[in-house]
């Protein structure tokens, strides 16, 4: 099953490699990993999307907690949460495709960030599934380049991950 793990860790050199190394050493999946400092610059927040059985997830959580740089670990997917991912996608936009691309972007609530005679760069935010559907909805021949940030997630209501 797919899980979204949120981690607060010391914003120190090497902390990221400790986490990434743990996943590769123990053979855990990483679907996506995103990390940046929080409002407290001494802390980073990392979101990892992974998958595995309940036993594997229990081990992942325990092993993460064991890392000395890790302050807190939460499995967001255990309860209500919101998740978002940002994608920038560069598409070919010539002739009749130009209007079609604009229309598709509007349907998916994308924003066109860059326009040239032959291309658009579209910004799209949403769940990973929504980004996938946008890609599937386009003619693959028109997709020039995509970049995705990986999932960021946060718990709903008063469920707070803080030191």
């Amino acid at each position, binding site marked *: 099953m797919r899980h979204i793990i949120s981690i607060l860790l010391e914003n120190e050199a090497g902390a990221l490699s400790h986490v990434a190394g743990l996943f590769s050493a123990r053979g855990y999946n990483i679907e996506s990993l995103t990390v940046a400092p929080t409002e407290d610059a001494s802390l980073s927040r990392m979101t990892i999307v992974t998958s595995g059985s309940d036993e594997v997830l229990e081990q992942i959580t*325990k092993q993460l907690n064991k890392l000395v740089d890790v302050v807190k670990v939460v499995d967001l997917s255990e309860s209500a949460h919101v998740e978002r991912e940002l994608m920038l996608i560069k598409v070919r936009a010539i002739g009749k495709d130009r209007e079609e691309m604009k229309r598709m972007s509007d349907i998916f609530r994308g924003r066109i960030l860059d326009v040239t005679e032959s291309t658009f760069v579209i910004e799209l935010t949403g769940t990973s599934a929504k980004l996938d559907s946008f890609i599937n909805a386009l003619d693959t021949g028109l997709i020039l380049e995509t970049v995705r940030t990986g999932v960021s997630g946060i718990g709903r209501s008063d469920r707070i991950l803080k030191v």
Partner: protein
Amino acid sequence: MIISGAEIVIRCLQEEKVEHVFGYPGGTVLHIYDALFKQDEVKHILVRHEQAAVHAADAYSRSSNRVGVAMVTSGPGVTNAITGVATANADSVPLVLLCGQVGTAAIGSDAFQECDTVGITRPCVKHNFLVKDVKDLASTLKKAFHIATTGRPGVVVVDLPKDITAEKCEFVYPAAVAMRSYNPVVKGHLGQIKKAVQLLLEAKRPILYIGGGVVLSDSAEKLTDLARRLNFPVTHTLMALGGFPATDRQSVGMPGMHGTYEANLAMHNADVILAVGARFDDRVIGNVEHFYNEPRKIIHVDIDPSSISKRVKADIPIVGNVPDVLDEMLKLLEDGFATSPQLADWWRQIEAWRAKKGLQYHQGERIMPQFVVEKLYEVTRGDAFITSDVGQHQMFASQFYKFDKPRRWINSGGLGTMGVGLPYAMGTSFANPGATVACVTGEGSIQMCIQELSTCKQFELPIKIINLNNGMLGMVRQWQEMFYSKRYSQSYVTSLPDFVKLAEAYGHVGMKIEKPEDVEPALKRAFTEYKDRLVFMDFIIDPTANVFPMVATGKGLTEMILAEDL
């Protein structure tokens, strides 16, 4: 007081009451070695290879519960030390390794003797640090010692760029460490402990299964107290030998691949297992699915939450420091928590299994390795520190030397590192001056760190090396005999040195023993006449001897092969 980084390193070691550092100098640690030269509180033991420095520091800790400290230079110094680091960390030994590093400006430039120390060591340490500012040096070292020795202990590597050890700053050693990201649990959950004790008292076929955590946390006495009150059989893993007296009636010996018949059957047939500081590893319970065939309740006490329910699901997990949890259990029992269990039937069954005498061997014309260990046990009156390497000799030593005290059996259990025996004996000797220290090894393992005979001479360490020489990589040969139709691929060691001459070349005493009747007199001579010398005893043993009982890989605990089956 404003002092250099190098002096800060030495001052920190003094503050931590470190008496011995095992190491090897080189370019990037020269400032530290210079600071070391100017004082005499911290003594340095010069080894002949960095791997041995870490192994010796490792055994220093295992045999004394002080933290082991080793120091190496950058690049090859570090890479040579890695085997020692991984070995100590696999067995949760508190150890701090100080590494030289090229100057901060040169890091990343492929400088001479540069390697990515934090990168290379990361997967095999508890934690590591690269010090980038001399102002952080003292607090980092304080953290290193704190992390190495608390929670589930382990190895901490501190990477020290050369310029940092030259720069100066005010030295203040922090009195305490506060880390928001590191606060190991100590006390176990009282509700869980109560549930556990209740279950223990209801058990019909219980077993106490103890692991290295009992020895590491110095809980042998408490554990023994608990075992006696409950009258449970006790099985101790390879890492827990001495955690409960092996000569006690309640001891059923070691479980697992080369465990006793009675221990394996008791583990498999128990209705309640109380696991303390153990981790149900593959060498202990064999095939997990097979183990699950028998329904039972498992209480699992460990300081490391990730060790619980990793391979075998625990019914009552208790995360906590072993001695604290044992204290709580003993207190509940004292408070007359319930009546004591009736285990007469269970004990009758265990005695029946024990009567099978699964550890029997036949001493014929050629010296049997088991016989040498038994004689070693008698001659040292069971009171020696025994280090071992890895292989058949290790199993024979663990099966036939009856350890009644903790921290007397020093071996590489988790990583299974050949070559540790001699440096382990060195570290043990430094931590326990005057103690009897013997290294049970084989002609394969001993050659992996043989150069340390020179260190032993320099420091006049009176180690007794018991070389069980079968001219074979015995354990490899045993597997090839049993599972590869006797195709002895690369397990025969040709061109062995004359170990007697080799020992003499290093300035030690060498003996070659070829007849069974010479075993005991030779051992007696070594431990009396040559009490103060290192004696290399080359026992030419029966090369066909195999280790039994044996649970083959992938098999269950009840599917043991006994010597009599063959």
